[in-house]
């Protein structure tokens, strides 16, 4: 500030300054309240996961005690050895992995392919067809699971891994997500390539696919996790224990060993762990994928 300030001006300046500090102080209390709220929310959100991990490291008798042991007295790793002996975890994980990879690959291919048709090729009836796609997002699967089951049985797909692949790989969600993304890519690019005599398939493969890597990553990860976590599909379609996925396997394990709390928690940790790792690595893509589909409902 100038040294040649008249007293009145200085006073105003002081007053303004004072008001500014007061606002800053208010915003500091606001920030503290904000942090406090976040910490409480985070604790509440994480409590189940904390309990899951801690219980898996206890002996069975220590899971339920009064007062509660928030930290295990001694860390017991045996559960993580026993679970492989007592369950068919390897088969379940193998089946789940096969399904998740196959479904993701198919969904990404058919989804991005169809999205190109919807976003970049103009033909009569296109928008109506897309509406039919979007419309089914509002139809709960639970309402047509019965006719679908009858159909799958007629096609001799039920009680095979193919049923889950068929169930998950052609969802409208993938088409929707990819279309949203393609529409952000300027048409000039494809026009220029068309002028150069590139076919539409060439444009999709050489221009659209490389440019839509983030969206493809989002779709892959979301589909993978969704297939990994699916409980209802395998519940209806996979009767044979050799076909069980981790979710259905864990559920039967819980029913069979219903008093082995520590072991049940160990299985739960193992079923969630791969997803947690994938999520931590690819977080950005999960969040962008959700944001893309949510923005233009």
């Amino acid at each position, binding site marked *: 500030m100038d040294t040649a300030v008249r007293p009145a001006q200085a006073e105003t300046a002081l007053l303004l300054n004072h008001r500014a500090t007061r606002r800053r102080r208010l915003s500091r209390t606001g*920030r503290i309240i*904000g942090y406090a709220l*976040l910490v409480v*929310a*985070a604790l509440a*959100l994480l*409590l189940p*996961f904390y*309990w*899951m991990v801690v219980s898996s490291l206890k002996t069975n008798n220590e*899971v*339920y005690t*009064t007062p*509660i042991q928030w930290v295990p007295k001694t860390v017991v790793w045996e559960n993580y050895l026993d679970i492989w002996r007592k369950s068919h975890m390897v088969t379940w994980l193998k089946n789940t992995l096969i399904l998740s990879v196959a479904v993701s690959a198919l969904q990404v*291919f*058919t989804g991005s*392919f*169809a999205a190109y*048709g*919807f976003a970049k*090729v103009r*033909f009569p*009836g296109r928008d109506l*067809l897309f509406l039919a796609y979007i419309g*089914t997002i*509002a139809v*709960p*699967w*639970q*309402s*047509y*699971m*019965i*006719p679908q089951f*009858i*159909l799958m049985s007629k096609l001799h797909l039920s009680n095979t891994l193919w049923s889950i692949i068929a169930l998950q*790989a052609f969802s*409208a969600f*993938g088409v929707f997500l990819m279309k949203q993304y393609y529409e952000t890519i300027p048409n000039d690019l494809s026009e220029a390539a068309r002028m150069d005599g590139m076919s539409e398939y060439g444009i*999709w493969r050489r221009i659209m696919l490389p440019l839509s890597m983030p969206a493809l990553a989002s779709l892959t990860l979301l589909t993978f*996790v969704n297939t990994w*976590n699916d*409980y*209802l599909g395998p519940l209806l379609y996979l009767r044979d224990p050799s076909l069980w996925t981790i*979710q259905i396997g*864990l*559920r039967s394990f819980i029913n069979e060993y219903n008093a082995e*709390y520590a072991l049940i*928690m160990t299985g*739960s*940790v193992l*079923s*969630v762990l791969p*997803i947690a790792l994938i*999520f931590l690595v690819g977080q950005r893509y999960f*969040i962008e994928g*959700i944001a893309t589909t*949510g*923005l233009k*409902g």
Partner: protein
Amino acid sequence: MATLLPAPARRRRTVWRDTAVGWSFILPNFVGFAVLTLVPVLALFYLAFTNWNVFGLAEWTGPANFQRLMHDASFWTALRNTLYYTVFHIPLTMVASLGLALLLNRKLRGVAFFRTVAFFPYIAAIVATAQVWNMLFSPEYGPINHILHFFGFSGNPGWTVSADGSMPAVIIVGTWREMGYYMLIFLAGLQTIPGELYEAARMDGANAWHRFWTVTVPSLRPTTFFVTVMLTIGSFKVFDLILLLTNGGPGQSTLVLSQYIYQKGFQENQFGYASAISIVLFAICFLVTVVQFLVNKRRNA
């Protein structure tokens, strides 16, 4: 060569070409989509009027299934419970997810970490998380009642093992699971609101509460609409959560429509009757969505 043709013929040819190319892109997905989604949805409307059973013997029975529904006490219980869940789950999730999004939209340290934490319940498998929640809710030894006692609450709610406590427990877990997802959508919506709007409101002397109602809420309207529709459908079709947390019990205290369809269809093999219940679920979701679209349109007009 195409230039030699008269203009209308040329245009017709490109339209044909574009249609063929367009369909060729859509077809691989469309075949799967049509067979596994469109056909079953249409078949539903036939099945519901038959007495189709596990042997595949179907007789056209007209409205008999629906007449039976009218007098089926379990069906009404399931419908009532579904509404119970919906009426609490929608506003709770809405408030929680918007609140979290507003918190995270400020320039605080560690926001990315909290976003991760809040979203994680949504992608953690429901079999495992429902199991932990069941253990957390254990009336005698579970941590939740312990925490409640610690804060001076004297009762001992039975949660998932009591008729009164089971639905609140389901609602709590449902909200816990989904709020992170809707938070992300709200967050994406909040980030599209231009900062100048807030500046202008501040110039006009609006306080934080005022700015929320005059700037945030109107600007978020498209997002809120999307969230409401998704939440409504999601609530009416609630299924795996119930199946794993309470299995509809104790008694029928948490029996919901989806589960009743499952019971009649897959456990009792009454495909026709289960299809009639499915149509009710379908119709509710359809009607609610249409009404919400209309309300949204009128509000925007």
